[in-house]
């Protein structure tokens, strides 16, 4: 039997004004388990807390009920008080007689009656409370960043800067991501490479950071502070630690007709290749689908010319196992496929391109060495039509486009239009828009400059169709403000394709038990207050895997994710919330209902041996809750048909006792 002390707070006149506190403490004196009951003006004051501490000692209390303000206000305070008096802090219950009683009821008798009932419910619960001790788990002081774009790079640099080792897993042969493909960045028109490549070099030179390029995450186990990750390093047929990146092999490789993915297929590369000049790590990779040596054993030229002897045709995929304390997802985005947009003739004409292709066409390291030439005939285009929102804000057909706004297109289109007019003033540039969205520092100024200073024709309306005719592209569009249909003979059409999360994100989310929205963007733990954390403890989000973002936003989110990771890794031990689910193995029948509803993947199954009454043993599959991962929502307790699953601190018995006390 518990020895419970009841402490009724007046809260000045806040409670005492409508509740007869004296009557409440008197009435509760005779409840089961109560050995002491009193009231005081301010229970939360130092004097009030001392009163509680003294009573614990004097009356040997095992449980405390404080009838006061909301537990959201002072539960933590009174738990500390209890702990100071040597009691387990979870032996404290609060009866909320201020917010939910004295403040909402006006008449003293009614308020007093309800306060007594609320007090009784709290006493009934404390009678069934058990001391709870938060679990502790160690923290592996190493972070994993999945994705080596600007988001992953920035996160890794920031974490390493705090002194923690970081591994980056990147599925391409080099880090750098989409930003490495860009030419200039809005609204400042910095050269993307000039600001990105120094960061890539920093990563390469930082001894806290390891880069697993050409690699993928294959399996994730464990939980916050203790993730076990298997990383698959795909064979690149070149010894990474031996290759000097001299490029002799690339020069000699006879297979020169492989579409170059870095330039989006607008030119060719060799079968052994280094994606671009500033690649990190700067090592060659052999594309097994095109290498003659790997396909049919003939050639071997690269091995012959490699002075370092780095070529290894026998290399195999390799699985690395590593432990991590925290995981950052930075899987980024891709432009959506234009295949379904027949009206824009993307598949019919080489001169209809996406904006990312346009970036490569204007980039000095691109297929045209920075000269703006049409892909079809390498002539200078004189009339360029930009079409915005291609596949963005498209609610009609999920296969075709995305319902959301891709956020970055308005600004990069303004940039493209402006740069084109700047370099080639003889070019007419049309931008067809639905809305121009420029919320950002210096964004609207930038867009207005494109219109006012550079004379870009912004037309409110959409392009309806593009028809290739001769060497022209017949563009039919509407001008809604003039209420006219326009027909433009264009030389080049640039489509601002919507962006979508990388395809690898969905299987990764499953591995991480991190939730995703219907568009495959990762869900944040709270949309406003915890934007860089995933609901799964220890998994953080960086960059466009969480939603469309421009570079400054991505970098700030990357820094925020890093600071969360640092906060986690700085701890030696993680203290959990002790109010977690707990499965009674004797009653669990292993049906898996609880596992299905757990949003955190905290429940796993173990085969457990039970002694039967007839002295035989029986092995049964039973649920086991990982208290470090469980957040204590209780979804599993209701899904469990056998009542084996219960929630500490909010046990079935405790809640029923409250129900009984209220309904008595």
């Amino acid at each position: 039997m518990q020895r419970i002390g009841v402490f009724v707070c007046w809260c000045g006149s806040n409670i005492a004004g409508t509740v007869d506190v004296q009557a409440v403490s008197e009435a509760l004196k005779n409840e089961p388990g109560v050995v002491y009951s009193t009231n005081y003006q301010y229970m939360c004051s130092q004097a009030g807390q001392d009163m509680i501490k003294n009573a614990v000692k004097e009356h040997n209390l095992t449980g405390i009920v404080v009838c006061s303000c909301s537990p959201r206000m002072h539960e933590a305070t009174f738990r500390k008080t209890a702990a100071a008096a040597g009691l387990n802090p979870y032996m404290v219950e609060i009866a909320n007689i201020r917010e939910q009683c004295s403040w909402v009821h006006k008449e003293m008798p009614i308020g007093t009656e309800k306060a007594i009932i609320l007090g009784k419910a709290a006493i009934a619960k404390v009678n069934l409370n058990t001391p709870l001790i938060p679990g502790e788990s160690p923290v592996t002081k190493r972070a994993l960043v999945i994705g080596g774009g600007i988001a992953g790079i920035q996160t890794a640099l920031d974490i390493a800067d705090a002194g923690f080792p970081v591994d980056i897993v990147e599925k391409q042969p080099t880090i750098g991501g989409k930003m490495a493909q860009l030419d200039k960045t809005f609204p400042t028109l910095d050269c993307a490479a000039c600001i990105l490549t120094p960061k890539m070099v920093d990563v390469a030179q930082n001894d806290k950071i390891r880069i697993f390029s050409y690699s993928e995450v294959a399996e994730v186990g464990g939980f916050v502070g203790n993730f076990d990750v298997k990383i698959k390093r795909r064979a690149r047929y070149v010894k990474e630690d031996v290759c000097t990146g001299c490029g002799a092999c690339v020069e000699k490789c006879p297979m020169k007709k492989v579409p170059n993915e870095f330039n989006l297929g607008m030119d060719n590369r060799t079968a052994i290749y280094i994606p671009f000049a500033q690649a990190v790590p700067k090592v060659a990779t052999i594309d097994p689908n095109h290498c003659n040596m790997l396909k049919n054993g003939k050639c071997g030229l690269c091995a012959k010319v490699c002075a370092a002897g780095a070529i290894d045709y026998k290399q195999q995929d390799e699985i690395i196992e590593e432990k991590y304390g925290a995981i950052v997802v930075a899987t980024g985005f891709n432009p959506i496929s234009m295949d379904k947009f027949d009206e824009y003739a993307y598949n019919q004409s080489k001169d209809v391109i996406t904006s990312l292709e346009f970036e490569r066409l204007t980039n000095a390291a691109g297929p045209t060495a920075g000269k703006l030439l049409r892909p079809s005939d390498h002539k200078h285009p004189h009339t360029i039509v930009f079409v915005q929102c291609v596949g963005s804000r498209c609610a009609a057909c999920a296969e075709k486009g995305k319902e959301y706004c891709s956020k970055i297109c308005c600004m990069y289109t303004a940039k493209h239009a402006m740069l084109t007019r700047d370099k080639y003033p003889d070019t007419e540039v049309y931008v067809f828009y639905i809305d121009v969205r420029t919320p950002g520092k210096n964004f609207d100024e930038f867009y207005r400059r494109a219109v006012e200073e550079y004379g870009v024709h912004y037309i409110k309306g959409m392009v309806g169709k593009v028809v290739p005719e001769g060497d022209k592209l017949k563009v039919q569009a509407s001008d809604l403000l003039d209420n006219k249909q326009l027909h433009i003979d264009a030389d080049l059409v640039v489509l601002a394709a919507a962006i979508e999360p990388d395809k690898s994100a969905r299987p990764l989310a499953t591995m991480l038990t991190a939730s995703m929205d219907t568009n495959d963007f990762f869900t944040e733990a709270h949309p406003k207050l915890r934007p860089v954390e995933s609901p799964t403890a220890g998994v953080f989000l960086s960059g466009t895997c969480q939603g469309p973002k421009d570079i400054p936003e991505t970098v700030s989110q990357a820094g925020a994710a890093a600071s969360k990771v640092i906060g986690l890794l700085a701890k030696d031990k993680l203290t959990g919330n002790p109010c977690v689910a707990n499965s009674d193995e004797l009653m669990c029948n292993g049906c898996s209902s609880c596992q299905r509803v757990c949003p955190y993947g905290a429940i796993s199954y173990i085969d457990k041996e039970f002694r039967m009454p007839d002295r035989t043993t029986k092995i049964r599959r039973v649920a086991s809750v990982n208290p470090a991962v469980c957040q204590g929502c209780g979804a599993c307790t209701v899904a469990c048909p056998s009542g084996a699953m219960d929630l500490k601190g909010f046990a079935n018995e405790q809640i029923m006792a409250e129900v009984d006390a209220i309904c008595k």
Partner: protein
Amino acid sequence: MQKITCEQLIEKAVALLNDGTVSCVLGWKKGEFDYDITPALFETEEELKNEFVWNDFCRANFSKYLISKTAKCEGKILVFLKPCDTYSFNQLLTEHRFDREKVYAVGIPCEGMADIDKIKAICGDGICKIECGEKIAVSTIYTDEPTLIDAKDVLAERCINCKSKKHVAYDELIGEDGDVIDSGRFDEVAKLEAMTPDERFAFWQNELSRCIRCNACRDVCPACTCEKCVFNNPKSGVENKSPANSFEEQMFHIIRAFHVAGRCTDCGECSRVCPQNIPLHLLNRKFIKDMNEFYGEYQAGAEVGSRAPLVNYTTEDLEPGEVFDRGNKDA
């Protein structure tokens, strides 16, 4: 009349027993009365030949027995499964309740089982002998000549509304597989739904007040496989072994139906074994009907590993307050 003969099944069982595929056979044998066929475990050819029975009264669903039998038996168990039994079989596999490797399942077609109460309504009491052939021949102590009854006329309710003649799980199939049937199994539920709340209350008061809490429904139910039922567990807070009042009866049946909701395959065993003839299956069917209507068609046990509606969700689900506005119910 069943299409597969008893001899065929015995032959199959003996063959599998003798070639060592299985070490025992879960089948039916005669009980105290001819219509009172009970489940039994056979271990020898002799036992099978002497006692194994297959006729219009082999109603028991063996799936649940596999939980305890697979845990005890050394080798594989041969089990005969009617189409409706295969759903329970799959559902138990979904819940990892027995080791599939330890079972050799033989699917057998079923033409529906007879309801002894319907036979008694025709022949009266005092049945001393029943023979199942083309027709069911019923002899009573009061008559010399047996009464011949067409099995179709005395089909059990659950067989009239059979949901599927298709086997969803087996290692081997004897005879031909059938199809999932678009049955009228929800008609009775819909009829109740169309009543006024007062009429419904009266209906259920009448039915549930007969409950004697014998727990037969729970004990036979292939979904009720808890190690310890919440109603037997003093820690659950709802423990009660015998009903003290009408509320506890209702509570028992509501909670039981809720606990098996999404897991119940609608095998109808609960109503079959109820000694008070309470139509308990209607409660389960109500949940099944609701969930089909609210969240899309779902048949528990149709496939192993499927996710039941109550442990699943979409962000667009209807609100609890909207459930009453659906259908043709009174306002």
